[in-house]
């Protein structure tokens, strides 16, 4: 169950899954956080189980960042309880959280763009060989391991020597996720991994979130996009003004209800009104079929 064992052999993860299937790895009970006299978070309960994706949704300023900062060890909670494996904890640094197997993948804090993929993968935890004066990087082993781990997550790169900056934003997120998984993460916190990505790249990242879940990790997926959340989520928590507005299993809620909770009733009504107006214009002016055939026709003309 300790993260050390899982850290070096990814396979051990599978063994640990059955025994704590129903016990949450990370649990918040009525937790809250006050910065001086400002209460950023209050009465939040959250459970993260292995092989489950827990989505935390909320608009800007809803308290999502505060929540992950508590779980990832950057801040301490000031009220309620924070339990890991059933025991109350209080992290003082992100390192403490990492030692418990709680890894955070930040949106842009993950990689060094000019360094090769494999060096990025092992950065800060390099494999070495040889005695001290000539202790050197075990490059072959690192490359092989990085390649294997990335393939396990379904990421196939033909050249691990390429600077990671030449990968797309989605691929970089995926490398960061694979890295966290390899280094023994049992709980993966993803801070708005799809916020800066296009539609297709978001899809790629969602796929790897699912892959991480299938490998037995508990995932905390922070987002403000209910559509992304609903695609992979098992449990949904909606934060609003620092408190928990909704906490529901997937079976208890539909996408529409989720979106409704995200936006808030009145705001959503206004939004729907606006959207329907916009869509009305769109449908009349640019029907879908026309949209599809137009570029093909021009391509055909150019060819002939």
């Amino acid at each position, binding site marked *: 169950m300790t993260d050390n064992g899982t850290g070096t052999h990814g396979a051990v993860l599978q063994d640990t899954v059955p025994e704590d299937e129903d016990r949450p790895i990370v649990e918040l009970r009525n937790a809250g956080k006050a910065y001086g006299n400002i209460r950023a978070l209050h009465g939040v309960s959250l459970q993260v189980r292995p092989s489950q994706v827990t989505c935390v949704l909320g608009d800007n300023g809803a308290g999502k960042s505060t929540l992950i900062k508590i779980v990832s060890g950057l801040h301490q909670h000031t009220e309620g309880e924070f339990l890991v494996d059933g025991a109350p904890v209080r992290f003082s640094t992100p390192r403490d959280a990492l030692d418990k197997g709680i890894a955070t993948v930040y949106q842009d*804090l993950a990689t*060094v763009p000019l360094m090769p993929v494999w060096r990025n993968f092992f950065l800060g935890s*390099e494999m070495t060989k040889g005695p001290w004066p000539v*202790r*050197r990087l075990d490059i072959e082993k690192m490359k092989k391991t990085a390649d294997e781990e990335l393939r396990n997550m379904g990421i196939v790169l033909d050249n691990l020597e390429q600077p990671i900056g*030449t990968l797309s934003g989605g691929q970089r997120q995926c490398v960061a996720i694979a890295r966290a998984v390899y280094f023994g993460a049992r709980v993966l916190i993803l801070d708005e991994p799809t916020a800066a990505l296009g539609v297709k790249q978001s899809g790629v990242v969602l796929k790897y979130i699912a892959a991480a879940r299938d490998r037995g990790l508990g995932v905390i997926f922070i987002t403000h996009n209910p559509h992304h959340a609903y695609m992979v989520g098992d449990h949904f928590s909606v934060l609003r003004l620092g408190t928990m507005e909704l906490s529901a299993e997937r079976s208890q809620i539909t996408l529409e209800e989720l979106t409704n909770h995200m936006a808030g009733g009145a705001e959503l009504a206004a939004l729907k009104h606006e959207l329907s107006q916009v869509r009305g214009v769109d449908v009349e002016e640019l029907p879908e079929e026309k949209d599809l055939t137009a570029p*093909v026709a021009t391509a*055909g003309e150019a060819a002939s």
Partner: protein
Amino acid sequence: MGMTQHADPAVTTPPASGPEQTDGRTAERPLAVRLLARPEVGVFLGAAAVYVFFLIAAPPVRDGSSMATVLYQSSTIGIMTLPVALLMIGGEFDLSSGVAVITSALTASMLAYQLSMNVWVGVIAALIVSLAVGFFNGWMVVKTGLPSFLVTLGTFLILQGVNLAVTKLVTGNVATDDISNMDGFDQAKKVFASTFDIGGVNVKITVFYWLVFAAIATWVLLRTKYGNWIFAVGGNKDSARAVGVPVTFTKISLFMLVGVGAWFVGMHQLFTFNTVQSGEGVGQELIFIAAAVIGGCLLTGGFGSAIGPVFGAFMFGMVNQGIVFAGWNPDWFKAFLGVMLLGAVLINLWVRQSATRR
């Protein structure tokens, strides 16, 4: 007539017209392009060009002893350029590196002379002072978050003033006293400033140090954890910290490494000339930085090599001596260097852009 009819069959062709089938995978680039993307290849070609140019323009260069002179000149720049280049890859500058050489030499010289002690005492003291200056630079940069340009500009001015003032205060002169008669001088001279005879050509020991240090620096940079950290703190400090790289340690130790380089070159100068001129060293820091940049190190950090600066320093030495051997007015040296620097930077820029393009 035929045009309107053509439009119809075209509609059935969509599956064929799909130029994008990459889905994120890169194609293998040609070997030549991949080679050019290496930081040291551009400068290697440049150094070769300069060498060939002077072989043709200045016949005396073809002589072995002339080559030894060129290499000696290159080595005194090159030894210092190595740590400066590592620091640059680590994302920082050191503008005080030129005067720090003199500071180190002055410390060793004056301490040993004034206290009438073995010169090795001065040598050790100088090392401690150089490390302390490096530590101060690094600590200030890391703790304040100020640009290293500003911090080391401050150190540069401080050291420049202290060098002159303290020397005048202690010796009553702008230069230190001759230490060649003191205990341990001959021994120290052997270590720092001796000459070897190789096939009838006298080669200064600094040339060997230079090449050995370059080999060690390359190994450290590419094959050790520490080297990995250097690239990481220069490439993206915050990411590096987030994944557990000791950023503070790496940066401060790099500044201290520049101190070690300054100490070594300072000792060489001291035991070559027996005395030290306290006002020297100003402007040298820019030569080191220029040699590192010509050597393919990225000014903003995160990219470069230790071999590139070797060729960069060689280009400087070659031009410096080549002009003399060619019988030209040495006043042109700096102008020539400036042109070379701009040329090298442009070539580097072009090479990197065309080679790293996806």
